[in-house]
């Protein structure tokens, strides 16, 4: 079937909706909602000034939203961090240091004996409390270790196809450790794991949302638009899909997916599974909206002008849902980021020794960690920050796309 192309249409519709008028010429009988923006377009082309183009207006509306702009910047930084994770992380993400398990974050010092000596850390010494068996660390004042920059050491990582072992900062491996955010149960550097884990966590949601929204919008749209037996069929399919419980499916899958698969395959497989289960709810909502809109004047007008049905659904009806879709998409993202950690509970998610934020946060979910190793909660802070950024960005985009908000 021609599904892929259709999916592209759906995506295009999404983008067109956000930025009301791009290069594509509006089809005849364009939806009512656009009426005002159409006139804006008409007047702007007449005047020929950039300043009043809808895109520019949207941009201006967007930049006026402080949270939106800040969020965009934060997300940009996060994605850059993910891209340069190998370079930014001082340690290898899988190397275990049995002499440094559950080590708290090391403090960076600059002054030694009253003199400025540049950034350095003290090496920590591990001691187990003889009564409570709590592992405690103490700074060893006789072992200051300078933090160096642009170090070449450790295992190689690949960056854009290059293999390198250049790290932005760290301490010389021969002299000791530097764990800026402490370590986990195996003495692995949490900071490095968070950085590398961001590669998974910042993409899993986007890809998942793209897949499930494409299917959901398309099938929900068709269902509501055509009604009759098609509606009935698609709705029954969604009911079946929604009825089949996720946990047993995932449990069955966890025994089927071979352990040999490299982490990236499993990762993609999981996203696909999550997305294929996830579209049904959205399809219901889209259908409800389409039902309400299909008999509106502009739709009937488009139909009477002979516009193909799919075109009407995707270009005339769906853009009305832009608001809803942007918001649901930004709301669905954290579900993927966190949901991925629930999968690892079933042995399905990102596998050790790879990392993702959800998986890292799982280590913090017991009283022992909350009491004794609170730094393990840091991935949670990052999840929160990214979710916050996505959602504020979503709100700002929604408002920017809303032509009547001026």
């Amino acid at each position, binding site marked *: 079937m021609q599904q892929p192309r259709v999916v592209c249409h759906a995506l295009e519709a999404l983008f067109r909706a956000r930025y009301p008028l791009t290069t594509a010429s509006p089809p005849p009988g364009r939806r009512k909602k656009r009426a005002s923006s159409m006139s804006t377009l008409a007047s702007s082309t007449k005047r020929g000034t950039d300043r009043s183009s809808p895109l520019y207006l949207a941009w201006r509306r967007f930049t006026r939203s402080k949270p939106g702009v800040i969020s965009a910047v934060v997300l940009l930084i996060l994605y850059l961090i993910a891209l340069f994770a190998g370079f930014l992380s001082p340690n290898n993400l899988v190397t275990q240091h049995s002499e440094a398990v559950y080590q708290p974050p090391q403090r960076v010092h600059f002054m030694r004996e009253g003199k400025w000596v540049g950034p350095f850390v003290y090496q920590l010494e591990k001691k187990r409390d003889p009564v409570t068996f709590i592992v405690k660390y103490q700074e060893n004042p006789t072992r200051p270790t300078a933090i160096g920059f642009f170090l070449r050491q450790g295992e190689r990582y690949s960056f854009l196809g290059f293999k390198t072992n250049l790290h932005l900062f760290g301490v010389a491996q021969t002299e000791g450790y530097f764990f800026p955010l402490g370590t986990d149960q195996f003495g692995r550097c949490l900071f490095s794991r968070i950085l590398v884990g961001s590669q998974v966590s910042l993409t899993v949601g986007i890809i998942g949302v793209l897949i499930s929204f494409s299917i959901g919008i398309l099938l929900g749209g068709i269902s509501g638009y055509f009604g009759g037996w098609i509606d009935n069929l698609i709705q*029954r399919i969604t009911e079946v899909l929604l009825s089949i419980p996720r946990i047993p499916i995932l449990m*069955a899958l966890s*025994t089927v997916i071979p352990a040999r698969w490299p982490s990236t395959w499993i990762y993609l497989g999981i996203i696909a599974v999550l997305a294929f289960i996830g579209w049904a709810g959205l399809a219901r909502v889209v259908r409800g909206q389409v039902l309400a809109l299909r008999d509106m004047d502009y739709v009937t007008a488009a139909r009477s002008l002979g516009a193909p049905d799919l075109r009407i659904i995707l270009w005339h009806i769906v853009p009305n849902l832009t608001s809803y879709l942007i918001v*649901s998409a930004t709301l669905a993202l954290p579900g993927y980021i*966190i949901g991925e950690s629930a999968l690892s509970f079933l042995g399905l998610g990102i596998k050790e020794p790879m990392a993702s934020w959800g998986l890292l946060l799982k280590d913090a*979910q017991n009283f022992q960690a909350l*009491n004794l190793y609170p730094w393990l909660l840091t991935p949670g802070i990052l999840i929160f920050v990214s979710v916050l950024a996505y959602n504020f960005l979503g709100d700002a985009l929604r408002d920017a796309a809303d032509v009547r908000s001026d």
Partner: protein
Amino acid sequence: MWTFLLKRILVAIPTLLLISLLVFAVIQLQPGGFLQNMLDDPRVSPETVARIRAQYGLDQPVWEQYLGWLKNIVLHGDFGFSFLNNRSVSSLIWERLGWTVFLAVLSIVATWAIAIPLGIYTAINRHGLAANLANLIGYLGIATPDFLVALLLIALVLSTGGSNVGGLFSPQYIDAPWSWARLGDMLGHLWIPLIVIGLEGIASLMRQMRANLLDVLGQDYVRTARSKGLAERVVLWKHAVRNAINPMISLAGLSLPNLISSTIIASIVLNLPTIGPFLYQSLLDKDQYVVMALLMLSAFMLMVGNLLADLALAWADPRIRYE
């Protein structure tokens, strides 16, 4: 309207059958099960396991087990037998249904009662401080896994010396008759599960409501209503909110099966006496007829929810007609 209802009910039967078939297949795909785990006990020999398998008809072909299960439902209204509990599935579910329905209804009502007004408020006061604060709390809710929220709340209660760290009652009130003291004790426990279960739902409903309402507020008919000089209150509630709520109704229909299957992990951490943990345990043990009955109940509720949502859609939105 009535023919529509009748049609839907007729269609529901084959759908339920299809679902039951799929669910049965999924259960058969599950690894493990109680029979295998019995072997770890020194009392049990493989021969015993084989005999018990035969006793429960698990040595028969899968399709025969399925048909037998189906036949018993149709002929005797019997949803099967729990291998582990040596009891009928329906009596086991019945025992646990009360609190499940109570909690689910309460959390759904609370979620909606809080989220919809907040959504409206944040839509009207888009850039206000209170609105942003509400958003922030909402984001916190969706960005934190529910079991972490549960754990954090429990840790908070513990650090303040409280004893309401799980369940719905203090131990001495679990099997006590109803009294004001028992009610008070329950209220003291109830807020934690309500926050844990409700927080995520509130955030998403609120944000969706805000977006929908903002959309609707810009529509021509709202403008028309305004220009006609209608009071803002009337415009907002009678025209805007009623339309903005459409997508939410579809969602509400989907929340009915949550009675059974949602928040399983949070219910386990919070030790809630609901069906979720029971379903999970039955799944692990592969107590197949318990799982079947629960999942079919869940599917049934989903279909009822969808049907109700469709009717509510038609009622709330005059543009929708079912022919």
